[in-house]
């Protein structure tokens, strides 16, 4: 008998909001975090816009300094800020480092799509090439290793359960939440911090620019650049940040009388195997539909009960494919298709952090009862408007929305898929 799993804490550092309060305000008011980035222009990027979070606004900056992570990769610093916010938001305390024992019931799975490219580009590679290796100092490994985010949170919180890293491209953040969900459901942990983190670094974003998957048409109007579902979408706007959740067994949350934002009813992960029409960069629709079907079945609900979809929808040609997949997977009459929006329309595509940030956004909408606007979708792609009603993709905030069930999906290079069903408790 698997345990019921709930979400009791939210933490976020997003391009349009540092901390949950600011992020919630931006979601409701349709505030974009996409800006022109001078450095990208100087480096000759085709895309010179992106979403870069302002970590200097984080109330957890003193903790980052206290524990010696000021010079660490932003992947780690963002994860500390979002992870501690989720921990505190759940009503948990930061234990005294010298007086506490390991907390064997709590762990951490924090993933990243790009990893610590920032510190390799800014420090490790230049110092090594200059034969100046000693100057990297003894902290360089802990400041750059991929498990750095979970290791740092462990150092601060004394986490004694599984502490690890995961990576599955743009589905990373959602995957880490599902891995944590599985661990708690199986009874191997009571509490897990889980989510994704990715930093701003030209070294991390250059590859996407070279692939020409980033928009080049909105350098002079950055806030218009991320336009999921739009006929004029021309590629995604890159983003950075971290979204981390405190996931907990219902039993544990109830015992300590914690506030519960939502229940995770199911979480499915699969891959299209890069077969049929699936490739390294394009999803196999059969696998996407299978993933959504499995999630709905495991949640023990009907497709028609889903009130709202938080899509992957990244402002590329794949948006049309995604909508077609949702329509096929749910099999509902056009008028019964649920609301759907794209958080990326405000944050850009935060790669490995996207899933974490967007699950935080989805839970905020479920818990507070609203659907945020999907910016820049005024010119819906005709193949989308043919199969779902315009009103299901809000351009304005929908308040007092009665949302009981949310489907959240993330997809990634490598033909990997994730789908969660979240429910109001």
């Amino acid at each position, binding site marked *: 008998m698997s345990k019921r799993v709930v979400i009791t804490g939210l933490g976020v550092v997003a391009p349009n909001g540092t901390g949950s309060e600011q992020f919630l305000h931006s979601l409701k008011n349709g505030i974009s975090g996409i800006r022109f980035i001078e450095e990208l222009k100087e480096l000759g990027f085709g895309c010179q816009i992106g979403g870069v979070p302002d970590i200097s606004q984080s109330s957890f900056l003193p903790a980052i300094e206290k524990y010696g992570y000021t010079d660490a990769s932003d992947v780690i610093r963002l994860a500390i800020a979002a992870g501690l916010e989720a921990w505190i938001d759940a009503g948990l305390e930061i234990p005294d*480092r*010298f007086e506490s024992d390991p907390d064997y019931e709590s762990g951490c799975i924090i993933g990243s799509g790009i990893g610590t490219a920032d510190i390799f580009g800014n420090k490790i590679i230049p110092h090594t090439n200059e034969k100046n290796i*000693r*100057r990297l*100092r*003894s*902290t360089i490994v802990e400041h750059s290793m991929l498990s750095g985010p979970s290791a740092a949170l462990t150092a601060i919180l004394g986490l004694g359960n599984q502490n690890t890293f995961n990576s599955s491209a743009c589905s990373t953040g959602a995957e880490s939440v599902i891995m944590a969900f599985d661990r708690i459901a199986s009874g191997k942990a009571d509490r897990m911090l889980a989510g994704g983190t990715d930093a701003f670094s030209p070294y991390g974003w250059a590859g996407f620019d070279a692939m020409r998957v980033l928009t080049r048409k909105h350098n002079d109007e950055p806030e218009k650049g991320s336009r999921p579902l739009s006929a004029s979408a021309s590629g995604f706007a890159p983003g950075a940040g971290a979204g981390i959740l405190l996931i907990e067994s219902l039993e544990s949350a109830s015992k300590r009388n914690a506030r519960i934002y939502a229940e995770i009813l199911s979480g499915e992960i699969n891959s299209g195997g890069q077969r049929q029409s699936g490739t390294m960069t394009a999803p196999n629709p059969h696998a996407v539909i299978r993933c959504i079907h499995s999630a709905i079945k495991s949640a023990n609900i009907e497709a028609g009960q889903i009130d709202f979809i938080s899509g992957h929808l990244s402002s590329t040609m794949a948006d049309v494919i995604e909508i077609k997949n949702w329509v096929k997977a749910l099999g509902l009459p056009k008028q019964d298709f649920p609301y759907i929006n794209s958080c990326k329309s405000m944050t850009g595509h935060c790669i490995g952090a996207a899933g974490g940030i967007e699950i935080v956004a989805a839970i905020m909408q479920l818990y507070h009862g609203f659907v945020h606007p999907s910016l820049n979708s005024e010119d819906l792609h005709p193949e989308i408007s043919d199969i779902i009603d315009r009103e299901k993709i809000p351009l304005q905030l929908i308040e007092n929305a009665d949302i009981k069930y949310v489907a959240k999906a993330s997809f990634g290079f490598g033909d990997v898929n994730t789908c969660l069903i979240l429910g109001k408790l």
Partner: protein
Amino acid sequence: MKEQVITVLKKYTFNPAVWDNATNQSRIIDDLKINSARVVDISLDIEEIFDITVEDDELEKLVTIQDILNLLEKKKGD
């Protein structure tokens, strides 16, 4: 000189209580509870402050606060 050395060491001690009974004979790792990996950083800080170079074999011999002070005296004499 000692004050500057203590300032450097304090950067790497998380628990202020370790300084309550500290003496020149206090061991950097065992008594001040400084992570052994940080001795490298301490030597780099000292190099910058006192404009000296700490060789690898000298680094290995830095066990106590007094060892650091002795090394600095020696380097000053050189």
